[in-house]
């Protein structure tokens, strides 16, 4: 039953901190805590609250804070990746643009990222429902994307974008791990980040096979042997600067 979400409410008058507020086994929320039904829901009135739930504030969706904020942040990144590869594999001339190996890799990445996206959607929804929250208000909506002048029939452009997205994913999960409170979530992030790193390696190898790029000196520190890790706020700034995500959103509670 380890995968079943269980929420046991305790008497709020007794809780010492928010971790005690929710006792959840398996897929659990801890740390910043969740607003439960019956608590004062005031985060639509423009006053930032201390519950840090994902949701609309001042007319803009905020990713929220705490573990649920990190999950929502990951969900946003996985939406981007899934959308990108969906467009890649469905582009006119996909079979002509890429050789058979490249098609296989890109098709696998399409599947994996779509699975990641659907996983986060289900997981976050489950946590919200169990906590008495309305997913319609708290779940990050489906984002819309625009890749500008990116030519999906140009091999080099697609692979370069893929490389950037996968490396960003690795850096994002690596940099978010330290902010995750619940070990179950940390493990899930770990299960995903290594797949992102396998992707990044493969794409880099497709671009430049006869090289060290699969784990290149641009991403793995040549002294420490450590991969890149970047804070959520840094990653979000980078992603926003690409102007691919068409929705406005904020991340006021992420580090």
């Amino acid at each position, binding site marked *: 039953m380890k995968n079943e979400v269980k929420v046991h409410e305790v008497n709020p008058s007794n809780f010492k901190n928010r971790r005690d507020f929710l006792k959840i086994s398996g897929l659990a929320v801890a740390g910043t805590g969740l607003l439960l039904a019956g608590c004062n829901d005031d985060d639509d009135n423009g006053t930032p609250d201390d519950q840090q739930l994902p949701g609309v504030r001042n007319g803009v969706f905020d990713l929220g804070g705490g573990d649920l904020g990190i999950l929502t942040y990951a969900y946003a990144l996985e939406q981007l990746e899934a959308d990108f590869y969906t467009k890649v594999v469905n582009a006119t001339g996909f079979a002509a643009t890429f050789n058979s190996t490249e098609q296989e890799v890109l098709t696998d990445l399409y599947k994996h990222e779509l*699975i990641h996206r659907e996983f986060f959607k289900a*997981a976050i929804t489950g946590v919200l429902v169990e906590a008495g929250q309305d997913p319609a208000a708290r779940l990050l909506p489906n984002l819309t994307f625009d890749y500008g002048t990116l030519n999906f029939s140009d091999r080099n452009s697609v692979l370069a974008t893929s490389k950037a997205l996968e490396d960003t994913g690795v850096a994002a999960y690596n940099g978010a791990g330290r902010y995750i409170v619940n070990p179950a979530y940390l493990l899930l992030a770990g299960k995903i980040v*290594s797949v992102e790193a396998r992707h990044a*390696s493969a794409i880099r190898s497709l671009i430049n096979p006869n090289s060290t790029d*699969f784990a290149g000196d641009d991403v793995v520190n040549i002294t420490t042997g450590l991969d890149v890790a970047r804070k959520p706020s840094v990653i979000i700034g980078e992603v926003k600067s690409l102007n691919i995500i068409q929705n406005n959103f904020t991340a006021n509670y992420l580090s």
Partner: protein
Amino acid sequence: MNILKFLEPFTNDNLVNGIGSRRDSFTQFGNIGKKVALASIPFGLAAISNKSFAADIGPTPNTPTGALQFALILEYLEKEFYILGLQSGVIPTGGRDEKVFMQISAHETDHVTFLANALGANAPVKPTFDFTVGGMFDPFNATINDSTAAYAQFLVLAQAFEDTGVRAYKGQAANLISEPQLLEYALQIHSVEARHASEVRRLRGLKGWITGNERGAGMPVETQGTYNGEQEIMQAGFNTSTSAGLFGPAAGSESFDEPLSTQAVVDIANVFIV
């Protein structure tokens, strides 16, 4: 098949009684493997068959320091393996393979230095490794005088070590959760191991990711322990195979890597520790 029944002939004499060395027992399994499907037997079987072998390492404590000590043991193993491989001449020179393994070797050496520095006085001493497992493998072409065959074995072990490394670090994450900076360092090594694993697998003609619990073409059954459990398709209650719009168990299992317990990794490492 009934694994216990299969194991019976081997568990009632020299394996349990410690008469034969682990090297002998592993050789036996190598021979038996030709006629019997050994798919369910873990890589580290030898470790449970003969614990009288004095140099075996034990599980590290479930603490931040224990996690880093455990990581350092694995990095010692990888560092030495790649240095010996590069020295042996089995890796084809002047092309992709040599570049790849020089890069991987550099990273593993960096990881040893980094972890040893982080641990300071708590750093464990480097074990003594035998990458031939008592003559079962010859990854450095010491005896078989066939560099092509030796290199194939080198690649097999490289894949097993990298895929094991990814799972091992993942399994230690929870032990580091109380030390955010150490956790981040471990994650930063973890993803490098995954980059390595992907490239080594692709050098061997496989996908960079693990499908089901498949160890992949050319991998001997003794490496199956590295892959058992990777077929998981239930993630926090979500079915990654059959949920609406998804693609079945192959893609579902590929999209999430699974952890290995400390004991499972220790059992694997002990196969190579003498």
